[in-house]
């Protein structure tokens, strides 16, 4: 146990191996929950006006009358062969759809996390430094307001109230559709940078601001509150006084010496928040018509697209695991006393 690169690799490797049983359990629970709650999905898949023959054909074709256990083992064996199933209505394979939509969600998630870090953490520092005076109360009002606002309300207010005032587009439909041949990453910002297309970059950022801001503003409270409370713990410590006594200005004392130690707890919280942001992302993508996996999850659930829902669950699980892994690694980077084990 130590802090060498080998120790870190072993640590990450162990976590990745542990992910396999977690994923297996997750797929099992989602599969049975989905199939137990819907008796005959074919009634939805073929539509209300279909003839009984069509329904019978659908049942026959998808095998939904087979025992659930058979369907489950069939799904798993397909999954191991790289076949994630098909959308029963459109007939397209699920995996390619998710692979094109997932980067857009990651882009939105990273943008929201970025805003939470660059706005939330300094606000926490300002609040802690003010320690009970008016800036502290103002910051608290701001983040508690966001924290108490449900996403469907906050996002709608931003979309129809603030967006038009600032001249920002309030939907994810891009005005200048990128050249499909150049969609390397399916992240609009990254693609436009790779294409060296400034017009598309500006457009992509403009489209990203409102959905990212609605995720960030409603959730940055957790970063602010965590930063504020750990800063309040750190500020009276002797090493902060040592930093002051060197003659460092308040800025360096706060943002270098105190914040570096406060960030340890903030990073841990942000890691778990990244996972819980995914549930908000479903709502926000639906409101802003963001072409991501969250909107796809919403549509899949409504249309009993089991393969699609399970695919989304797997990808969400990957995000949660990776986010926690990144926060654990950052924890060790920030605190030199941590050993990888």
């Amino acid at each position: 146990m130590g802090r060498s690169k080998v120790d870190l690799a072993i640590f990450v490797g162990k976590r990745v191996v542990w992910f396999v049983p977690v994923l297996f359990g997750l797929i099992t629970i989602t599969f049975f929950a989905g199939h137990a709650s819907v008796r005959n999905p074919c009634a939805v898949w073929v539509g209300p006006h279909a003839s009984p023959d069509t329904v019978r054909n659908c049942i026959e074709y998808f095998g939904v009358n087979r025992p659930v256990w058979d369907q489950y083992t069939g799904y798993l064996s397909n999954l191991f062969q790289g076949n994630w199933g098909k959308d029963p209505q459109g007939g397209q394979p699920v995996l390619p759809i998710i692979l094109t939509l997932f980067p857009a969600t990651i882009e939105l998630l990273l943008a929201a996390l970025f805003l939470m870090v660059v706005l939330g953490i300094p606000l926490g520092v300002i609040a802690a430094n003010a320690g009970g005076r008016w800036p502290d109360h103002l910051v608290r009002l701001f983040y508690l307001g966001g924290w108490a606002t449900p996403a469907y309300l906050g996002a709608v207010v931003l979309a129809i109230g603030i967006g038009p005032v600032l001249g920002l587009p309030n939907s994810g439909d891009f005005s200048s559709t990128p050249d499909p041949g150049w969609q390397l990453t399916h992240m609009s910002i990254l693609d436009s940078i790779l294409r060296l297309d400034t017009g598309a970059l500006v457009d992509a950022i403009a489209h990203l601001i409102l959905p990212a801001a609605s995720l960030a503003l409603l959730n940055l409270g957790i970063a602010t509150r965590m930063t504020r409370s750990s800063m309040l713990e750190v500020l009276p410590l002797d090493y902060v006084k040592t930093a002051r006594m060197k003659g460092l200005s308040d800025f360096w004392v706060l943002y270098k010496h105190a914040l570096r130690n406060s960030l340890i707890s903030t990073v841990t919280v942000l890691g778990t928040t990244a996972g819980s942001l995914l549930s908000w992302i479903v709502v926000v993508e639906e409101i802003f018509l963001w072409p991501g996996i969250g909107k796809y999850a919403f549509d899949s659930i409504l249309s009993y697209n089991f393969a699609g829902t399970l695919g989304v669950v797997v990808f969400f699980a990957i995000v949660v695991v990776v986010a926690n892994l990144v926060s654990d690694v950052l924890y060790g980077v920030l605190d030199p006393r941590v050993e990888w084990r």
Partner: protein
Amino acid sequence: MAPGRVVGIVGETGSGKSTLGQSIPRLLPEPPARIRQGRIVFQGSDLLSIPKWKMPIVRGTSIGMIFQEPINSLNPAFRVSDQLIEAVRIRKLRESGEAELFRPTEGFDYSKDRPVDPKEAIGRTFLPSAPEGRRPRAGRTSEELRKDALEYLRLVRINDPETILDLYPHELSGGMRQRIMIAMALSEKPTLLIADEPTSALDITIQAQVLTLMKELMDEVNTSILFISHDLGVIAEMADDVGVMYAGGIVEFGPVAEVFERPAHPYTKGLLESVPNRYKADGPLPSLPGSVPNLARLPSGCPFHPRCVFARPPCEPDPGPALEPVKGAPAGSNRRAACYYSEEVVRLK
């Protein structure tokens, strides 16, 4: 405090020693702390009239500090090199004129109490731009800063400073950390060094080593030191003058040998009598009756009168006795005590 002299501050826990030390560079958080009256005259300027955000100019290069707990006084997240070089860089920036430096008021006469507007003292040091012909970043490349840092580690007698420099504080012992704290404070060449119980948290052998080191360094660097301790023996060893604190105030001040030989305040006398003496192993250890009063509810008059064996009716009403020259002390010895009967006390054997 005269330049180059070591002034000891001694007193019981809770008597306000650390508060005194930290209030000089205005390190106490305001609020809740508040300096209600008086002045903090440093090199001819009243530090209280400097806006708080400008205080960093005074800290480091003018007033340095060593704290009590070496475990907490180094930042756990940064290597020794980062923390030490930071201090070295601040001094270099200030010496080269790239950052503001606090300068003493010119021709300040320490014998007279004549505070000067600090705006004058700080404003005068605003160098308009880099002096002509000076290379930018002269002496501040990372190798040069590292070399400087190594020099200060050697100054505090650290073996193998190259290795130590790249370690984190948690990889070092308490004594080693305190040496690094001392190196850090000295690397800024402060005019005044406040040592707030620098050895109290160390075990006894390390304590002796650090004290010996500090004593040696006192001869090498020309710095005035305010040495705060609850240990009378350490004060006797280290200090030239001593101030004895009781309930938030200095009750006696004077050259350490004279004060400890013939105390002029009953509290000092009681404190000295309660030091365990291995040559007198008979009978119980003498101690002061009663305990330190709650600072929020001080007794009227002399704060020591409820515990004092010399107390008489005049000691009770407000205001209590002020710190005044002791009558009957040897001429020119600059002894002061806050007691109406100091003349009587000092004559006792």
